[in-house]
């Protein structure tokens, strides 16, 4: 019925395999970039050859309707090697990778299909067709900042953008791995998802497969163990992909009253959170009225973001009421919280805010892509919707943590927590 469900029944031919145990050797983590230098030089050389191989494959595939086997093997090895290298660089895996891109040698690997017949039309327009996935891959898999230049006036150049997910997870994971000797699972999963998606995009671009990259994080990390359920998680109808074309077209202006209202509400929420911080610090648990008020605020924030970024269809209400919006948030009650974690809450939240910022960039790209698709088809793509769900869930967990609704740290894994009885956002029937 749904494209995502179809995809679920028919897995993507480029399959990510994660056998990493999260353990990291501090020494190799500390010198990770330096150690990667030979690989970086090697990959540059390999990329140079791949350009020619890709052009040759493109022309041959256009004529024959399938890529030539030797070139396909060469390009597959390149995709696999790049996956290993990315996993090593972004701390998704620990061992030093080999230089050949051989299969089964690395804890983070990809399964790639053999040379199969492909539609000539899809081959002919491969590059323009790949642009949306390249945009998303840049937001997810790039390292550091994605910059865009908005113009130059009086010799001043303005730039903006967001940190790409894999790079952000790697930087934060670097500190954590040095301190603990292990990569946090959430950051590892986030990195693995980015690496996997980049591999699918590359395989598509180099004609290794004609299957379009699937951005659904759940499908990508199908074999990865799910984290425990977080007290702040998404609930609602996971399969509501219908989008009204009219409201999609006008999504931004329709969101304006909500954005104004959210801005006004934020001012009060900041004051309430300061009061809540003091109360929680003294009593060890939040004040109930403040907790209720801030819960509504966080829920409303999610409703507005879900609407604005096309993760949901309906125009949301203005009160953040529980259970009325198709994409909703489960929040804990005013439970006991650790006083030290309360005292340093803002400081502790900095890494989560950084990850949230990186995911925000991905959310923006996702929304732009969804806008075009939903306008054309009247429904959102399953994969993009789930990326948006991931970003929104993490953002809500961060807000709830900062506003002292919970002392459970946001979990960066793209996978929703495992609690079988719960119908959550990225679970499939």
């Amino acid at each position, binding site marked *: 019925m749904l494209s995502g469900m179809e995809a679920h029944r028919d897995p993507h031919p480029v399959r990510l395999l994660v056998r990493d145990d999260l353990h990291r050797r501090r020494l190799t983590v500390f010198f990770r970039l330096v150690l990667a230098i030979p690989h970086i030089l090697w990959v540059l050389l390999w990329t140079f050859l791949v350009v020619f191989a890709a052009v040759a494959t493109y022309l041959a595939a256009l004529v024959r309707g399938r890529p030539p086997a030797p070139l396909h093997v060469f390009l597959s090895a390149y995709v696999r090697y790049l996956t290993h290298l990315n996993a090593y660089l972004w701390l998704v895996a620990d061992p030093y990778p080999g230089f050949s891109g051989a299969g089964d040698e690395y804890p983070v690997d990809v399964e790639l299909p053999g040379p199969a017949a492909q539609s000539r039309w899809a081959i002919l327009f491969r590059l323009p067709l790949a642009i949306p996935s390249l945009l998303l891959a840049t937001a997810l898999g790039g390292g550091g900042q994605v910059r865009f230049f908005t113009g130059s006036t009086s010799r001043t150049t303005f730039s903006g953008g967001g940190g790409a997910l894999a790079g952000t997870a790697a930087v934060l994971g670097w500190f954590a791995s040095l301190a603990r000797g292990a990569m946090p699972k959430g950051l590892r999963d986030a990195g693995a998802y980015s690496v996997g998606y980049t591999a699918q995009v590359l395989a598509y671009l180099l004609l290794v497969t004609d299957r379009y990259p699937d951005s659904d994080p759940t499908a990508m990390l199908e074999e990865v163990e799910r984290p425990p359920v977080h007290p702040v998680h998404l609930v609602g109808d996971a399969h509501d992909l219908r989008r009204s074309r*009219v409201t999609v077209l*006008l999504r931004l202006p329709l969101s304006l*009253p909500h954005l*104004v209202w959210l801005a006004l509400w934020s001012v009060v929420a900041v004051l309430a959170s300061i009061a809540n911080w003091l109360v929680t610090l003294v009593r060890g648990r939040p004040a109930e009225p403040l907790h209720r008020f801030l819960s509504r605020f966080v829920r409303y924030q999610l409703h507005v973001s879900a609407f604005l970024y096309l993760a949901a269809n309906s125009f*949301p209400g*203005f009160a953040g009421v529980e259970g*009325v919006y198709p994409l909703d948030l489960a929040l804990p009650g005013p439970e006991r919280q650790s006083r030290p974690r309360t005292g340093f809450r803002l400081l502790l939240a900095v890494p989560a805010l950084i990850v949230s910022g990186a995911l925000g960039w991905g959310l923006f790209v996702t929304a732009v892509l969804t806008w075009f698709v939903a306008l054309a088809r009247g429904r959102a793509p399953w994969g993009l919707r789930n990326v948006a769900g991931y970003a929104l869930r993490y953002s809500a967990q961060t807000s709830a943590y900062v506003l002292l609704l919970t002392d459970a740290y946001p979990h960066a894994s793209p996978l929703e927590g495992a609690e079988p009885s719960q119908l959550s956002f990225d679970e499939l029937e």
Partner: protein
Amino acid sequence: MSARRGAAALTAAAGWAVAAWLLWRTSVPSSVRLPRLDPHAFFGPAQLRAAASFSRVSGALWWGGTATELAALAVFARFGGRCARESAAGPVGTGMLLGMLGFALVWAVELPFGVAGLWWQRRHGIAHTGYLSYLFGDWAALGGEFVFLSFALAIVMGLARRLGRWWWAAAAPAFTALVVLFAFVGPYLLSTHRLGDASLAAAARRLEGRQGVGPVPVVVERVHDATSLPNAETSGLGPSRRIVLWDTLVDGRFGERELEVVVAHEIGHLAHEDIWRQVGWFALFAFPGTLLIGLATRRRGGMGEPAAVPLSLLVLVALQLAALPAQNAISRRIEAAADWSALDATRDPAAATTLFRRFVPTTLDEPSPGLLDYVFRESHPTIMQRLAMVRAWRSRRR
């Protein structure tokens, strides 16, 4: 019960009429009779032809845009309620969504007329705005309108859900209060700079004294990137009052004495407290207007129900169109009084004549438009009426 209602309605109507009579009063002596003047005595045939040609197309675009807007809103009133299923926002939020969708529809259907109008003005050198800039350069203002519309609907629907059929009695004062707020705040939102012409500034001080108005800042707004039309306006209430001259007015095309007439005209508005007068008129129209919207939407459950919103938009626009002749008549009367004050203050009918004559080539306004255009589109006295007033003023001074 019905007798009491009838008496209340009569009392309200009488109060309305008294208020309207008070606001209708003007400083132009009642004995003034405007002479009939022949446009050919003031303007060359080429000028008249150019103005007529320009106005013909502008008028056609205005009527086309208005008719299309009404037609689009009629369709939306019929089918717009279906969009309510896209909302999870409760009745008021759903009403806001429908209102914004209706507004977006109106914006979209009027866009071709706007672009055509821009093309026509650019062709005549009146507008300088680029097409892309026209389409994409004013999103902030458009967004502001979306926000204001949803805010207005939240007020109306909130009141309707609390007060039932009597919502209009509270909504009219609420909107009047908003108009006062915007009138006060408006000047602070304009980007202006001080008037650089020292002699004109000194003349303004002198004219303020003559017209019995305290010192009011005279500022210049930069518009020449968008248009070559000359214009000036008075805005603000109390401490925010100011006279705004467009930079296209002080770009050298008009002489010092002509500019003094313009400034005296604007000071005349201040002397007559015309912003308050317009607020008063707004309030007078708001009461029956909201009542009529309330009556028209009763069959859809009243303004508390989202289903009534699409119809209310149609009724609102239709009422605005119906009230336009009266509003233009009021506006023309206010402007005529300001012209008379300017003549009294400057005592320079020759400058006023030159100024009004210069308006035709610079604005391509028709000196004496047809009846329909005059009734629906002229918010100021026509050029010939303004020239006739100068002549009437001059003959009274003799």
